[in-house]
């Protein structure tokens, strides 16, 4: 076992750090230093910069445009992005449907979709949950009926994150009602912008942002060639994807950004003649979370290193979802505590009342209550652990 970095790795880190520093556009950099919120456009701008450098998809194999990095390099790259507070890229294309197409897609699909996912030319979103199929994903009801070379889709998806910005959506839908609910599910790719009968309705979250949408399908035609994997066997892919999602959602890198923001807030919050950062008890609270976050980060690394490149992480990734989301939420809670009376504010509070680095904390705090719910709620993760890993008996 070895955690030391080779001279090559140290040089790589230096290269990454310097490049990020030079490549971040000024306004994004200003926001990063301030801990401010990034707009969708800014995230995509950064995506395209990374793409031009060849670094947009660190985990993809080289032959489909990945940089050909090993686990250590990917780890270093992730650390450096987080250190720089760079925008986090949307995971739906690069982290979810991309790897799935790489593993299960046919050559046509790979050629058609992967390059534009990589370049950011086509933005993706996820169509998994339905109003009556949240944690119980297998009971989904979006119907896909065959008609000639197409499927005709009818039904509704909810929590389609960023659908309002997306060009494509990947959906789980029901192609058969026979057998167990897990059977009869297929995995389709639908062109959001150019398919008649698909309607996207963004709705407000408690964070005050329109991160989510509901997506309605009414006789929407999707060509059968846009099905990934065999018909009625979409559940396999759904599970693989949830594995990917769990490691993404753990949010170890992102939570570091908010931890750094918390420290900045504490250091700029006067308490008596000093600042909150001088309060040993508060420093200890920060330290505890930072230490906990390191623990989750190390577990993340172990699991990623153990999983072979390209393969989906197994059920043990559930612990990352569990522990990662809890520490992430706890960090936003601490940031709120650091703000003291300013935590009453909102992102539309005037700057006189709420300085820029504190403007988005409350929104994030509210919005992130979702991270223990989506991607398979933490209760579902515990079910997975107890059944699949621990082999505890059914009731």
């Amino acid at each position, binding site marked *: 076992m070895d955690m030391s970095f080779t001279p090559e790795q140290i040089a790589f880190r230096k290269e990454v750090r310097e490049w990020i520093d030079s490549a971040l556009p000024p306004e994004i950099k200003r926001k990063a230093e301030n801990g401010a919120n990034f707009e969708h456009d800014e995230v995509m701008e950064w995506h395209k910069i990374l793409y031009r450098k060849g670094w947009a998809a660190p985990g993809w194999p080289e032959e489909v445009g990945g940089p050909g990095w090993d686990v250590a390099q990917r780890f270093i790259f992730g650390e450096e992005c987080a250190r720089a507070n760079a925008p986090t890229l949307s995971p739906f294309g690069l982290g979810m449907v991309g790897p799935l197409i790489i593993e299960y897609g046919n050559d046509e699909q790979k050629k058609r979709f992967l390059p534009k996912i990589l370049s950011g030319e086509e933005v993706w979103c996820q169509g998994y949950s339905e109003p009556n199929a*949240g944690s119980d994903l297998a009971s989904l009801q979006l119907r896909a009926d065959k008609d000639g070379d197409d499927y005709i889709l009818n039904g509704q998806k*909810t929590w389609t994150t960023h659908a309002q910005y997306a060009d494509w959506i990947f959906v789980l839908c029901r192609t058969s009602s026979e057998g167990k609910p897990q059977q009869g599910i297929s995995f389709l790719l639908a062109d959001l912008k150019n398919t008649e009968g698909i309607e996207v309705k963004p709705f407000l979250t408690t964070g005050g942002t329109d991160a989510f949408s509901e997506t309605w399908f009414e006789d929407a035609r999707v060509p059968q060639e846009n099905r990934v994997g065999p018909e009625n066997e979409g559940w396999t892919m759904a599970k693989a994807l949830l594995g990917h999602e769990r490691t993404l959602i753990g949010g170890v890198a992102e939570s570091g950004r908010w931890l750094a923001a918390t420290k900045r807030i504490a250091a700029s919050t006067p308490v*008596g003649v000093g600042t909150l950062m001088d309060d040993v008890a508060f420093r200890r609270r920060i330290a505890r979370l930072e230490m906990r976050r390191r623990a989750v980060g190390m577990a993340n690394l172990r699991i990623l290193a153990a999983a072979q490149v390209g393969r989906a992480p197994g059920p043990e990734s559930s612990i990352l979802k569990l522990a990662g989301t809890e520490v992430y939420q706890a960090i936003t809670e601490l940031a709120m505590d650091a703000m003291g009376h300013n935590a009453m504010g909102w992102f539309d509070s005037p700057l006189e009342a709420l300085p820029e680095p504190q403007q988005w904390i409350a929104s994030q705090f509210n919005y992130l209550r979702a991270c223990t719910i989506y991607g398979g709620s933490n*209760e579902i993760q515990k079910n997975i652990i107890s059944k699949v890993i621990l082999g505890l008996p059914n009731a």
Partner: protein
Amino acid sequence: MNFDLSEEQQMIVDSVAKFVENDSPVERFRELRQSEQGWEPQMWAKMAEYGWLAVAYPEEQGGFGGSFVDLALILEQLGRGLVPEPYIPSVVLAGGLISKFGSSEQLERYLTPMIEGRSSLALAYAEKQSRYNLNDCLTRADKSTGGWTLKGQKVWVLNGHAADHLIVAARTSGEQFDSSGISLFIVDSDAPGLSRILVKGMDGQRSALINFDGVEVDADRLLGEENEGLAPLEWAIDRGAAAACAEGQGEISEMFERTVQYLKDRRQFKVPIGSFQALQHRAAEMFAEVELCKSTMILAAIQADNEDAGTRKAEISSAKLQLNDGGWFVQKYALQLFGGIAITDEEDIGLFFKRLRVLNGLFGDADYHVDRFQSLERFNGESI
């Protein structure tokens, strides 16, 4: 020792509950969130008609001679409807101070119209740098010919955007952190030199950032003793904390009851999700916290009238800690058990969540109250 409600108290509870149900359900607050003022004068007047603004003041001041417990019972019910009228800032904080420390002229000029629902009040005490430290005061009141001249800034003044009169804590002597030297003044909100910036809060309620740029106040606007304003301020903020516990109890109870109902109604895996033992146990843990909140809230309300500051502080800090910690447990898991829908703005549960988080930070957070408790003399004496 007696925890039963009196007949009068039960009547108050019933009438406020009915008011919330008929006149001010959460839907009303939902609409008012979008408005500038955030609350409605005619509803304030209605509350005055019911006598709820007067209940705890002495009869000779036009009140009903009730106790802080009466205020707490009203607030608990108001919390269930997220009623946005400025009960805490106007009745508990500013009204309480005028009632206890005001001259008869001040009572008549400022308390009477408020009791009658014709005006509202606010207490401006916090400053940008002060966090929860009441003695940290930079706003100055310098002696002038007719009285004093106020210079400085106050932040997060609850109802400060709409109040007709403000009680302002300002330094008449001493340095930034000195305990003595703070005085309280009653200032008209339209006084020359006073400017207000409306601030919308996370909870959809309103406050103000207020600049005092040489505001002249007459000598008769001094509330209580010159330089001796800190003790009254502490008293008022303590009662504010007890009031936050009372209102918060309404929101906690509402969140909990709605969650239990949701567990019975929502089906996943072909059964009500409330049949899953893991969720049942979570609900049971929440129930325990709700009950503990209720117990400490009652005790704090009872002791809010206690003249012994040690007892008052001990019980109010304990209650606020329980609101902030135990209440947090309830609000956090209410969202978790509701699942995704709870993160949408359309679902009420998130509104309760936000209001509770605001109450959590008002009048001292958990660390503040724990720290205050451990500095009480009794902490070093007997532990029982």
